[in-house]
């Protein structure tokens, strides 16, 4: 049984229907990429999973239906959603942002238990603990957002365009860490990207959305060779 399963999912913003029919699965321990042009519905798909957009159809996680659950209770099941724009608290310090990541499992004991492991991936955060998160560079903020999600020891990590606006070396670094988390800790990851190249290189399988529907799906290695995907998303 897959860890995450969406079938026939529709979602709307008021009268605007953003997802028409999304069906996808993600196995435990898998990295899956979600690609698509602007406005295809990638962000909305993640929102449909974390319960932050009105949706219908079936979404289940670890065998449980997420149907009418609130975003808070979905987070408690172990889904960490790093949203578009990162969702940091700029006026709080780096450390306070990390503590907020621990909130879902009991802040005090969780931050004590998980901080050393997470700081192992981002050692530079240690010296920046008391700095306001808003004063970090874009790349540092993205890493802090990732670190904050990891503090909760999620069963599923969802990243929304982690590469947006960042220099290629930083993007490479972020995806290197994601792959490491996957191979070492068996973390399951659903990553939304416009940077199809690095997303396909870092994932086992991928889905391509077009106007709220899954248009193409398959093993990432195959999609890299897929004529249409190459032309539209890889640019050659």
């Amino acid at each position, binding site marked *: 049984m897959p860890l995450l399963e969406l079938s026939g999912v529709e979602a709307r913003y008021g009268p605007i229907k953003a997802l028409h029919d999304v069906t996808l699965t993600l196995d435990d321990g898998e990295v899956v990429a979600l690609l698509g042009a602007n406005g295809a519905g990638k962000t909305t798909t993640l929102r449909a999973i974390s319960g932050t957009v009105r949706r219908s159809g079936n979404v289940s996680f670890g065998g449980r239906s997420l149907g009418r659950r609130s975003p808070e209770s979905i*987070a*408690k099941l172990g889904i960490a959603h790093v949203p578009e724009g990162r*969702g940091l*608290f700029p006026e709080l310090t780096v450390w*306070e942002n990390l*503590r907020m*990541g621990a909130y879902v499992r009991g802040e005090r004991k969780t931050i004590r238990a998980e901080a050393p492991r997470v700081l192992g991936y981002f050692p530079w955060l240690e010296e920046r603990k008391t700095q306001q998160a808003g004063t970090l560079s874009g790349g540092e903020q993205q890493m802090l957002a990732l670190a904050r999600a990891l503090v909760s020891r999620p069963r599923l990590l969802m990243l929304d365009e982690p590469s947006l606006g960042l220099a290629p070396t930083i993007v490479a670094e972020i995806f290197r860490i994601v792959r490491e988390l996957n191979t070492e800790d068996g973390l399951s990851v659903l990553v939304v990207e416009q940077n199809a190249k690095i997303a396909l290189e870092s994932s086992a399988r991928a889905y391509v959305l077009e106007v709220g529907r899954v248009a193409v799906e398959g093993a990432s290695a195959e999609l890299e060779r897929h004529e249409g995907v190459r032309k539209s998303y890889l640019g050659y």
Partner: protein
Amino acid sequence: MAEFAQQIVSGLASGAIYASLALALVLIYRSTDVINFAQGEMATFTTYTAWSLMHHGMSYWPAFALTLAIAFAGGVAVERVVIRPVERRPELVIVIVTIGLLLTINATIGWIWGADVKAFDSPFPNNTWDVHSVTISVQDVGTLGVCLLTVFLLWGFFRFTTVGLAMRAVAINPNASRLLAVRVGWMLALGWGLAAVLGAVAGMMAAPTVFLDPSMMLVILIYAFAAAVLGGIDSPAGAVVGGLSLGVVINLLSRYVNFVGTELRLPTALAVLLVVLIIRPQGLFGHKVVRRV
């Protein structure tokens, strides 16, 4: 000189009352994005509650503590019942709801307790201390102490507890907080509860000097607005500093500048405010609002 020092202390005492109520306004402004026009009436209501408790034989400090608990519960209830249904509506709608709340609470006070002025006990003795020939009223020192202690405890709560941290996070980014499993609605309600507690402290500290009547907090609320805006409306530290300095400045002006006297205190406060805002539009401690086009 001694007289001057004395005026500063009594300015700080009234300033501490403005500061408490200003801080209540800022707390709600940060989380709900509106000025709660009913903050003063909520404070008045709780002060009457304290009066009733004492009237029925309770002694001061137990009545004080019980009133704070009632204020907290009342603040939470107001948010859940009155504000929550309009939470996602435009800010103007919420502001109008708070004005409706103001009128409702005011009418309720008159209905329960009547409109006549009542005396309210002070917990502090009515004598003075002489420190190096400066005569300081114990009443002033006590008022200042109680208000500052409340502010300090609140600061500790926000700074050191998990719930305080979550409340700050919700004020900054409610959507991101929700993804981290924070129950945003309850955090907002908690904010209203704490604001009501601050208001109750301000009301109970003000009542011995301004006396109890249904509109006792009106002028204080205007000073508190001024203090909050002076400090930068979104800054808790600003509200406290704004309140204290406003209290001192007003007191000194009305004592030493003849034409100000007591009648022109309020216009003077607004003039001070205006001058500060011309020089520093974001207030003393506020964040500059950067408008991107």
